[in-house]
Every structure is written in C-alpha cells, then in structure tokens.
C-alpha cells in the first residue's frame, strides 16, 4: 500500500495542480465548489503525504528515488526525478498540514472577496508547486518548481490587483527573487557542466553522491562558487540580506497568503535548498568549515540581527511578523552554515507551524479590526477575541523561544548549541544570543500593543472570528506545542530521523546548559519588553499616546529602524536608478548612436550617389530615410525625358536599336 505511493510520488503535487486547473475553469460565482475542490485537493495531498511518510519511518536513512527521462536532445538525455527521504517526507508533512489549515482559514477570511474562486486556484497552484519542490530529485526539477512557487507568490501578492501598492510589491518580489534565481540558474549550469548530471541521487552517479562529488572535488574552489551561486537563489527566496527587501512588502497580499507563502513554506524553500545540496557546500570541509558555509553564516547572522532590529520599530502587525520571518530564516541559515543541518530543518518545520499560527492570528485580528494593520490603533483585544489571543500568545512564546513547552524553544536551543561550537568564530554565537533577546522584545511589544491596554480607535466593535477561522488557529497552536515532543533532547526523534540515526530515550539530557542560557535570555527579552511597553499606547509623563516608548527614548535610532535602515531608499538611489539609467541609455544609444551610425553610412553612400548622378545637394546631411528622397529627385530629373509622347519613346527605341546594331557590327 505505502510502497505504491513511493513509486508514484508525482501524485502529491499533481492533485493540488489538478484542483487548481479545475478551479480556474470555474466561473466566478461557484464559490463553494472552488473552496471544496481546493480543500479536497489539499486533503488528498496530506493523505498521500502521510502515506509517503510512513515507509520512511521503518528504515533509518530511507531514500527512494525514481528518475525518468524528460527529453532527449541530440543523443543526450535530460533526466528528472522524484525523491523520498526523511527531509522530503518531513517537509511534505509540514507543508500539507499547514497548507490545509490555511486553506480552511481562507474560506472564512476571504469570504467577502470578489475573486474568491481565483484565490483558491492560485493557492492550490502554489501548494502543488511547493509540494513538488520538496520531492524534486533533480536541480532542474527543483528549479522549475522553484520558479512556479515564485510565480504563485507573485500572483498572490498582487492578488488585490486594484491596489497599486500590491502590484508594486508583487513586481518587487518577482524581480528581487529573480535576481537571486539568476545566480541559482548559473550555479545550476556550472554544476551541470562539471558533474554532467543534475540528478541529486542516481544510484551512485548523482551530483550529490560520491561520483559526482569526486568530479567536483578536483577543484574545491569551483564547488564553493557553485554552492554560493545556488545560495544566491536561496537568499533571494528566503529573504536573506541583501535581497530581503521584497519580503516585508509582500505583506500586501491577503493574510493567508502571507501565512502560507511568506512565512511557513515558500520562504523556507531557500533553507530547504541549502539543506538539499548541503554536500556541495560542505565539500572539502575542514572541521566542518568551508568558505561557502562561512559566507552562509555571515549572511545569516546579518539578516537575523538586522531584521530583528527593524522589527522592533515597525507599526504594521504583519510587517513585524514579516521581519521576524526574515530574522528567523537568517537564524536557520546560520544553523546550516555552522553545520547544524538537522537543527536548521527542525527549526524550519517548527517555524512553519508557529509562524503560520501567528500570521493567521494576525489575520484574525485584522479581520476583527475591519482591515486595520496598525498595532498602535489596536489594544485590549484579549477580551473580545479570546481564542485569537490565546493561540497568538502560544505562537508568540514559541517564536520567542520560551523553553520547555514550545517547539520553537527546543529548536532554538539546538541552533544556539550548534553555533556555540562553530570553530571559526564565537562572535556569531553572541550575536545570535542578542537576536534571541530582540525576538522576545519585539514580540512582547506587539502583543502588548495589540491585546493589552485600552481599546483604541480600530478596536471598537471588534468581534471574534468565525469558527472556520479559529479552528485552524487551534490546530496550529496544538501543533506548535506538541511538536516539541519530537524535539526534546531527551528523545531527539526528529533530529535522528533527519540524520538517519535511531533515537534513544534519555531523560538526563533534558537539562542542558543551553536550557538555562535560553531561559535567561528569553526572560530578559520579555521582561525588558514588559517594562518598556507597559504603558504603550497610553500617555505617560511627557510622552503623548501615539509616540512609541522607544521612539521617545531614542528618536534617532527609532527613525533609523522604522525606516528599515533606509535600505529600500539606498537601492532606489543606486541599483534601481542605475538600471533605469542604463535602460534609457540603451534606448538613447539605439535611437541616436547606432541608428546615427547607420545613417552615417547611408550618408556616405548618398554622397557617392550624388557624385555619380549629379543630383542636387539638398540631402547631404540626412540619412537612410533621405536616400529615398534623393532617389525621388533623381527620378524627377529623369522623368522630364518622359514626355508621354509615344513617338518620342519609339524614336528612342529606334536610336537604341541602331546603337546596338552598330555595336554589334563593330564587334564583329
């Protein structure tokens, strides 16, 4: 039974794709069938995912690939394939489950929307592409799904198409990720060139297996470059510095989209990609350190800290979460970079649950507040929205990394643990610790602003969301808590599942030094947050109500952070302006320089023509176009010979004949 799905893995992405196609062909009023189709498609995908997950439990280091020919060009063949291994199976489970919750949530959240049907078509399309991405056994196939999730993201960010800001954000996301993708594309070409195959695993001949790696290992520098180029793609998709700018803007999309694509799944694809091709990164590693991994670490650290800092000063509820996502993705990258692949993936999975929970929670809040995004206008929501509040608090704890009860705490500890043992530098470890404090701080700030204090302008007449929206919240909250069962050091089942070992139960390992470090840091972050924001949203001494406490204390710093460190402005002034200038320059060159050059040649020819035909000199300065005019004036001169008198013509013919006759006689 289960082996059947193992050999038919394509079914998992195919079902949502099929659902999407059917929904697209529905008319705009068939709302119920659209939603039902999407949910059924996703449900089946989840069922198949579970079926596919089961066999991977039976053996350690389970890995089945099915490769097939895509096409034959010349005498060569391009092969694609699907893979099922613990990494893929775990991702499948997470994506299908979170996806299902979000699909259900969307039924409620988007109920009023005009383009409800189209929304579900896009959402199913995304789900299919994302599921396909994680089971791809070929870099090409991965790239194909990679681009398709990018397309889905583009369509869904710009879903409210009548808003110019949504369209601009969609364009920005598309272009920015594509910059990274071009690096990915080049890396893929290079890898193909070097190893002769793009299949990851192919019975020993894949590019990630001994034969392929041996071919690459001949020049480790090249392998490093290839890895870095691929990392460009990962950085673009996962919002790593300096390509992170699109992700916060992507919050223009509907909230379920933000939850599914820009928090739980697609943005994590970059992390997944690095984990998938990890052998390339670690090729020729000494002590687990390679130049490419070092780059990954530093990019990750920069991103994590920068985004956490910016999150502290944002006012838009979704933007805070977006920056938090960027920060967490940076954390995962750090984990991968320092060698903690399993830790990174575990955090990815856990993050998928709790960040989706947080986003759906924020969606519920926004829904309740009639579309308001600004946290400074909310307040006191814990009473009218109890379910949302409790689940949101659970999500917040998990994100902050409160130890012991919440999944995020365990995975974060594991990452910190890996970072602490990185031989290259200890600075990353301390910077990561700072990141943990900041995370706790901005989440505390947000929750105080939104749920505590007095109700402000937007939070009047607030209602709890309908059941269809709260149920997914509850499911996800349960996941966020009970997922930690698989994560504890006492029984590190997920860790061993991913690394292919067997888990031993040992209660002693539950208490580790990192546990206390984490406890202190999170406590400090939350405590500082409560102290600082205890009166947020209300006037306090000399501070008016609408001014943020931090802004009051450190106006310059706050402005710097609130404006996202002016990175967007910097890009606009440099990269964007430069490209735009280049575009205009090209256009100008084309219109005037190249065309002028050609006209110049035309003019030379024309000059020659003028000499030989003694046509008037009017057209000397003109170009190709004027040549016709020249020809026309020549024609005018010639046409005076055409009197229209047939006798003249006949006479000329006779003279011509005579001339020919004489010529002939003379020759003979």
């Amino acid at each position: 039974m289960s082996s059947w799905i193992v050999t038919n893995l394509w079914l998992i992405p195919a079902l949502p794709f099929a659902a999407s196609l059917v929904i697209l062909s529905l008319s705009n009023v068939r709302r119920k069938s659209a939603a039902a189709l999407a949910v059924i498609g996703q449900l089946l995908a989840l069922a198949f995912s579970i079926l596919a997950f089961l066999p991977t439990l039976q053996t350690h280091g389970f890995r089945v690939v099915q490769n097939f020919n895509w096409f034959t060009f010349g005498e060569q063949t391009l092969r694609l394939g699907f893979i099922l291994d613990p990494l893929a199976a775990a991702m499948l489970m997470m994506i299908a489950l979170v996806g299902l919750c979000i699909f259900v949530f969307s039924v409620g959240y988007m109920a009023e929307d005009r383009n409800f049907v189209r929304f579900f078509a896009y959402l199913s399309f995304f789900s299919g592409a994302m599921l396909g991405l994680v089971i791809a056994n070929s870099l090409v196939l991965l790239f194909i799904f990679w681009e398709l999730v990018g397309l889905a993201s583009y369509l869904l960010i710009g879903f409210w198409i009548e808003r110019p800001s949504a369209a601009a954000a969609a364009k920005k996301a598309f272009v920015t990720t594509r910059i990274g993708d071009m690096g990915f594309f080049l890396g893929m070409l290079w890898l193909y060139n070097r190893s002769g195959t793009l299949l990851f695993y192919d019975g020993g001949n894949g590019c990630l297996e001994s034969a392929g790696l041996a071919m690459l290992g001949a020049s480790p520098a090249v392998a490093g470059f290839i890895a870095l180029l691929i990392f460009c793609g990962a950085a673009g998709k996962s919002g790593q510095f300096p390509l992170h700018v699109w992700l916060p803007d992507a919050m223009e999309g509907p909230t379920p989209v933000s939850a599914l694509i820009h928090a739980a799944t697609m943005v994590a694809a970059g992390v997944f990609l690095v984990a998938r091709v990890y052998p390339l990164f670690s090729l020729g590693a000494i002590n687990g350190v390679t130049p490419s991994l070092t780059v990954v670490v530093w990019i990750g650290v920069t991103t994590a800290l920068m985004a956490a800092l910016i999150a502290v000063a944002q006012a838009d509820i979704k933007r805070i979460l977006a920056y938090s996502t960027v920060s967490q993705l940076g954390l995962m990258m750090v984990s991968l970079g320092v060698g903690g692949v399993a830790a990174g993936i575990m955090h990815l999975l856990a993050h998928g649950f709790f960040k989706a929970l947080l986003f759906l929670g924020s969606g519920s809040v926004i829904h309740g507040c009639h579309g308001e995004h600004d946290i400074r206008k909310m307040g006191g929501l814990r009473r009218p929205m109890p379910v949302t509040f409790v689940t949101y608090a659970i999500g917040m704890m998990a994100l902050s990394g409160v130890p012991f009860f919440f999944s995020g705490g365990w995975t974060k500890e594991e990452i910190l643990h890996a970072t602490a043992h990185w031989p290259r530098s200890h600075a990353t470890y301390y910077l990561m610790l700072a990141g943990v404090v900041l995370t706790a701080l901005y989440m505390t700030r947000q929750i105080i602003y939104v749920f505590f204090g007095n109700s402000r302008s937007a939070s009047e007449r607030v209602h709890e969301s309908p059941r269809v929206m709260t149920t997914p919240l509850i499911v996800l909250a349960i996941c966020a808590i009970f997922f930690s069962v698989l994560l504890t050091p006492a029984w590190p089942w997920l860790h061993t599942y991913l690394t292919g070992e067997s888990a031993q139960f040992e209660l002693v390992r539950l208490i580790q030094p990192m546990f206390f470090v984490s406890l202190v840091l999170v406590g400090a972050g939350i405590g500082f947050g409560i102290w600082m924001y205890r009166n947020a949203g209300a006037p306090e001494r000399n501070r008016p109500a609408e001014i943020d406490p931090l802004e009051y204390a450190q106006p310059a710093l706050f402005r710097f952070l609130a404006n996202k460190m002016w990175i967007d402005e910097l890009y606009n002034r440099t990269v964007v302006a430069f490209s735009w200038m280049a575009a205009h320059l090209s256009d100008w060159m084309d219109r005037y320089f190249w065309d002028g050059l050609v006209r110049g040649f035309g003019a030379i020819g024309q000059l020659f023509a003028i000499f030989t035909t003694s046509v008037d000199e009017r057209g000397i300065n003109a170009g190709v176009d004027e040549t016709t005019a020249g020809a026309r004036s020549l024609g005018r001169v010639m046409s005076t010979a055409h009197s229209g008198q047939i006798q003249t013509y006949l006479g000329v013919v006779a003279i011509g004949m005579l001339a020919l006759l004489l010529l002939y006689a003379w020759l003979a």
Partner: protein
Amino acid sequence: MVGLITAIIFVPLLGALAVCTWPQKNGRPIALMFNVISAACALGLWWKFDTAATELQFVERHEWIPAINAEYLVGVDGLSLLLVLLTSLIIPFAFLARPLPGGRGFYATMLVMQSALYGTFTAQNFVLWFLFYEMSLIPAFLLIKIWGGENRDRAATKFFLYTFFGSVGMLLSFLGIYFAKGTFDFTTLASLGKHGLLTGRLAWLAFAGIFVGLAVKVPLFPFHTWLPDAYQTAPTGVSMVLTGVLSKMGVYGFVRLLIPLFPNQIKIVGPWLLVLAVCSIVFAPLAAWAQRDLKRMVAYLSINHLGYCMLGLFAVAASPVVAAEIDMHAALSGVFMQIFNHGITAAALFYFVGLLEQRSGSRRSVDDFGGLMQRTPLLCGWMSVAMFSSLGLPGLNGFIGEFLIFKGSFAVAAAFTAIAVIGLLITAIVFARAMQSLFSGPLAESCSAFPDLLRKEKLVVVPVTLLMFVIGIAPQFMFNIFNTTVVQMSRLLS
C-alpha cells in the same frame, strides 16, 4: 507527380491568385482555406518524415539553369521541417490577428510571402534559396509600406534598404564562392567548408558579406535599428510574421550557410561575435524597458530572444575549444527549440498587443491602459501566459530552449553566458513592469468599456497557449523532429 515540398511552396501562390480573383471584398476565408491546405501538407511532411534518417528527405531535383549549375533542389531535414511547421502555424495565426487591414491585396501579399518562406526553408541550393529569400523581402516591404501605421514610409524604406543591402553583400559573396568552387549546392559546399572554401582576403570578404546579410535579417546588434521601427508600424499580423518567421530566416541562414561554410573564419572572430550576441541579449531588453509603446517593447524583446539563438550558435561554432558532445547537442537543440518557441510566443504577444490596440482605438502606449485585470480578466490571464513564456518561466515553452542554450554555451563561453543571464533578468523586469502598468491598479477610464476576450478570439488564443504548455511540459515530440539533424550538425562542426 508533384512532390510534397513543391506542393507546399505553390499552394500559397495559388492561394494568392485565388484571393485576387475572388469576387468578394474580404479575402480572409479563402486565404485561410489555402492555409489549411498548406498546413495539411506540412503535417503530411511531418507524418512521413523519418526522424532517424541522416540525409535530406523528400528531395526533388530538376534541371533549372544548367549554365550556372543551378538546380531546382528542395528537401527537408529536421531544421527545415521545424521551420516549415512554424510557418504553417504562424501565417494563419497572423491572419486571425486584429486590427486587420482589409482588402484582398493584403491577403494575397501575405500568401506570396508565405510561399517565399516555405521556399527559403526548403531550398538546398543557393540560387534557389536566394530567390526565395529575396521574394520574401518584397511582400514584407509592401506590407509595411501600404498597410503600416504611422511613419510607415520611413520604416518600410529603412527595412528595405537594410535588408536589401545585406542581400547584395550576400549575393556577391556567393558569386565569389561560385567562381572559386563552381557549385551552389548547400550540402556540397558544407562538406567543402571544413577545409576552407576560399583563402586569404577573398575568404574574409565573402564571410563579411554573408555575415552582414544574415545579421541584418536576424537582427544582431548593432544591425538591428530597422527592427523596432518596422515592427512598430507594421500591422499586427505582419509584425507577427516578421518576428515569428522572417527573423528565423536569418538564424536559419547562420545555421545552414555561415557556420558550415566558414568554420575557420568564425573561430578567429568568435569572441567578437559572442560580444555582439551578448550585446543583443543585454542592451535590447534594457531598451525595451525604456519603451512606452507596447509593440516597440515586444520588438526589442524579440531582438533579445534571437540573441539567445545567436549566443548558442556562436558559442558552439566560434569557441576556440571544441565543445563536448553534450554541450554541442544542448546548444544546437536549444537554438532550434528557441527558434520555434520564440516564433509562437512573440507572435502571440503581438497578437495580444493587437487586441489591446483594437479595443483602445489604436492606442498602445503602456500609459493608455491600467487596471485591465478588473475589466478583462481572461484577456489579461492569457496574455500573461504569453508574457511568462517569453520571460522563460519553467513549465512553458520558453524555458526549454533557453535552458539548453545556456547549458551548451556555458561550457565553452562561461563568461559570456554569465553576462547573458542578465538578459533573462531584465526581460523579467520589463514584463513585470508591463503587467503592473497594464493589468493592475485602478481601472483606467479609457479602458472601462473594453470587452473581454471574445469567443472567436478565444478560439485563436487557446490552441496557441496550449501548445506553449505542451512544449513546456512534454517537449519530446519537438525534439524528435530535429534530434538527428542536431547530431549530424555537431559532427560537422567538431
């Protein structure tokens, strides 16, 4: 008994006659009928085509001008067949485009051009080939000149002078070759080419003549400045044919003539040719970015897409290193795929621009539209598919060709390929910008009365788009057409 190829060449000519003598004003039904016949012939060719055979197929050879050793010699290999199929597809597609200049003359001229195109792609002898090559030029000129829009005189003259100048150079070069070798036969010349057809300065002159002639036709940077004007002003259907098929004549010429005949010369100037190709790839979309006129924008992107073809060809033929077999096969297959894909995609883009133009009353600046998605979701949806295909989104046809071209050229010209990737990026930017300003935002007042895709338009759009999907997902049937040719050709080159 008339051979299938002769039939396919002459059916459109008969069609042109029939259209001229047709009593009704509207020549479209009869023109389309003849298109169906020629498409049936093309399908027949495909049906009977032996994909494993290495030599030319359906060869017809008759005495023609014995004095100069010129025969009527036609035949197809994989590449020719591909282009014949493309022609059979694009011409009726162009006839269904709008806004459409009326009158029988338009259809008759188009049909004459179609015949010339078939001839160009099947002729295996230079004299015959050149005859058809030039025969396509005149209808194209007339179509721009008579039925064009604003600035048509200027654009038509520019087009004519450019291409004609190129053709003259090519003719002279071939006369030089003829006097040296005494034959016009492509196959014979190609087998002679390996050892150098000509020597010394003469060889370079002949090379330059043919190169410029073909580079103008493709067009390759910096011989491209006629193109934006011509495509912009030509009526939609003509633009579709110009970009979909006529530009392929240049690429075809490179594959069939220049590369087999002058392998040594190409090797020497190779890097410079690659520079030109990369310039086409990078500067053209940059210029497209700065355009406001949609047709002009698509025209510039056409230059970019044909630049990929040139990149693949030059990388294989011009690199000092002999490419590995896999890279040669990849690059050549990629180029052939790109020829076909660009043909349908660019034609589809022009078709959609034409639909917009018709709805807006012949305005087509990006500023004239806005928020179309609210008013005409189907039109926008299908048009986006064409756009995504053009920017090389996987799952659609454009990706296959581009991936293979890049794969093949990366191995031999990594630096150039790396720069060329920028072209992919800029193309994406151009389309993202176009989609933003056309489809999204508040509905522009001028667009508030646009009808959505009509049924007859759907009938045109859906099959073409489906073809894009099919090629993008399961392209093997396309590769089958030309795989043997690719293998043959790469043997010739190595």
